[in-house]
């Protein structure tokens, strides 16, 4: 197309990428370059901060003036009994929250299956629309709502419980140190259940209706139709999400725990992400960085393991 005829006459190889194509190749890259630079700065450059884990770094003093201490901060995790105890406590919380999350990840599946069983279309829509709202408010707002509902002086929950005689005196739920894991998972599902079910509802809607009709003809009960048609239809999607959450086993995120933490429940609510934040703000930067670093490494290993598992089981990778 773009090869000038003069070049052909001089006997130059005619099939080579035209100059215009070559230009496009680099032009496209140059157009993307500013965005790639932003990606580098905010996602890759922070890895260089791992270096602080090897110094006795104190905020405010330049790194060049701080002593290199090698693996000191990593060693304290196992060498210092108090530190070891702390880390074990935090790990226990992390594992507990993540395990509870994995076990209850069938909730949205059950929600979706039961919701599709409801015959009145308007009611399905009503439930789906309203149960999704909490997903779109921040954890601070969830906490603010909880604060008002459960407060001791004038919260509606305590009032009703006392009036019904279920509890003798008003109880400060949010500052309680018991059942923290369970209340946290409960709040999590209050916020995420409706939203989590949407994907499965879409998957169920995509299942071939003829399967159900054929089962009907064969006299299958409602339960058998769910078990033999709906559930197998959902499983691939469920499996992918489950593997991704295995990859995120050590990343609970911190927003929920940050919002709900207080002096009373701190021991049971501190997951790794929150712990790192808390120790950093107690000004122990190098130790926080060391824990941060270990966490990143573990989570990458888990992700690769989950991905390998996915390749073996369903011949497809998740990332």
């Amino acid at each position, binding site marked *: 197309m773009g090869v000038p005829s003069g070049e052909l006459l001089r006997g130059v190889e005619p099939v080579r990428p035209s100059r215009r194509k070559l230009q*496009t*190749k680099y032009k*496209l*890259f140059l*157009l*993307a370059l500013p*965005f*790639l630079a*932003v*990606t580098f700065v*905010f*996602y890759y*450059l*922070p890895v*260089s*901060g791992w270096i*602080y884990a090897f110094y006795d770094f104190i905020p405010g003093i330049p790194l060049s003036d701080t002593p290199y201490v090698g693996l000191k901060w990593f060693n304290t995790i196992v060498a210092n009994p108090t530190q070891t105890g702390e880390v074990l406590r935090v790990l226990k919380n992390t594992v507990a929250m993540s395990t509870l999350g994995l076990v209850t990840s069938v909730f949205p599946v059950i929600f979706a299956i*039961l*919701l599709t*069983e*409801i*015959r009145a279309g308007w*009611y399905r829509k*009503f*439930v789906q629309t309203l*149960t999704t*709202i909490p997903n779109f*408010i*921040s954890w*601070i*707002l969830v*906490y*603010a*709502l909880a*604060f*008002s*509902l459960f407060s001791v*002086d*004038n*919260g509606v929950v*305590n*009032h009703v419980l006392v009036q019904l005689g279920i509890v003798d005196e008003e109880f400060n739920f949010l500052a309680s140190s018991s059942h923290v894991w369970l209340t946290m998972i409960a709040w999590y599902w209050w916020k995420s*259940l409706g939203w989590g079910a949407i*994907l499965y509802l*879409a998957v169920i809607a995509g299942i071939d209706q003829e399967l159900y009709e054929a089962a009907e003809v064969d006299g299958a009960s*409602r339960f058998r139709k769910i078990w033999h048609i709906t559930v197998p239809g959902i499983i691939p*999607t469920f499996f992918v999400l489950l593997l991704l959450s295995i*990859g995120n086993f050590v990343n609970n995120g911190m927003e929920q725990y*940050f*919002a709900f933490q*207080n002096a009373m429940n701190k021991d049971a609510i501190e997951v790794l992400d929150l712990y790192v*934040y808390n120790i*950093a703000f107690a000004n122990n930067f190098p130790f926080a*960085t060391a824990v*941060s*670093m270990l966490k*990143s490494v573990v*989570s*990458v290993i888990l*992700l690769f393991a989950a991905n390998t598992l996915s390749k073996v089981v369903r011949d497809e990778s998740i990332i």
Partner: protein
Amino acid sequence: MRKKLKPSDALFQGIIYVLFGLFTLSCIYPFYYLFINTISSNDLSAAGDIKFYPQQIHFDNYSKVLRISGLSHAALVSVYRTVVGTFLTVGASAFLGYLFTKKEMWGRQIWYRSVVVTMYFSAGLIPWYITMHNLHLTNNYLAYILPTIITPFNIILVKTFVEAIPPSLEESAAMDGAGVLRSFWSIIVPLTTPILATITIFSAVSQWNSFIDTAFLMTDTKYYTLQFLLWRYLNESSSLAALIRSSPDMAASVQNMQTPTSVRMTVTMIVVLPILIVYPFFQRFFVKGIMIGAVKG
């Protein structure tokens, strides 16, 4: 024609109707409870008497809370990060997502992968904080908008969407001499409006809801957002009470005197209202966004 229900079926239907009804109620009652408490007499509210419907309706709480020093400024910061941040991330996602569909791009696969992989890997909170600090992005408004420009999930959504557009449209534009920028603007943008609308809404909601970055990066109160201010009000009762005493027209009126509780509830309502207002409009975009995201490129 509808079949008649067997008794066992009717019982099953009845149970799930009730269960879903209760859960739905639990999802919306907190919002309603807060709302009726902010517009009812503060005395009744403080006694815990407002449970199902408002009494002695008034709007003093709203007019007074809006005058708390710092609150309207925080609202401005929240609006700024939502508007500017969303605009930038949608623009960047649209353009980069489109560029990544161009097979001719030098090193396309590597660049695309290196963007996507950031969804699964992070250096950790502290190294990130130190980087932001070294870039002078602490106590800086830019910290709210620059890091969110590249949101890998949005880029995947756009790329997948653009790949589904017949290439002939672009080819014919190229014949007419349209360059990359021109065909992006006149062909791709109009055709990707549905997905751009979806990511606009998701980005706006997430910008509005953000608070961790403020907790990390901002020590000067003038950078506080509404979310963060609300968190402070929830955790610092004494300073909130002092704030109310220091604002002249708040404690003055005998009727509907402002208390830490009334301020907290009203601020919560003010922060949550924008989301509740736009929710009916963006609700229909969900499924589209989720489904495309699930079958990612």
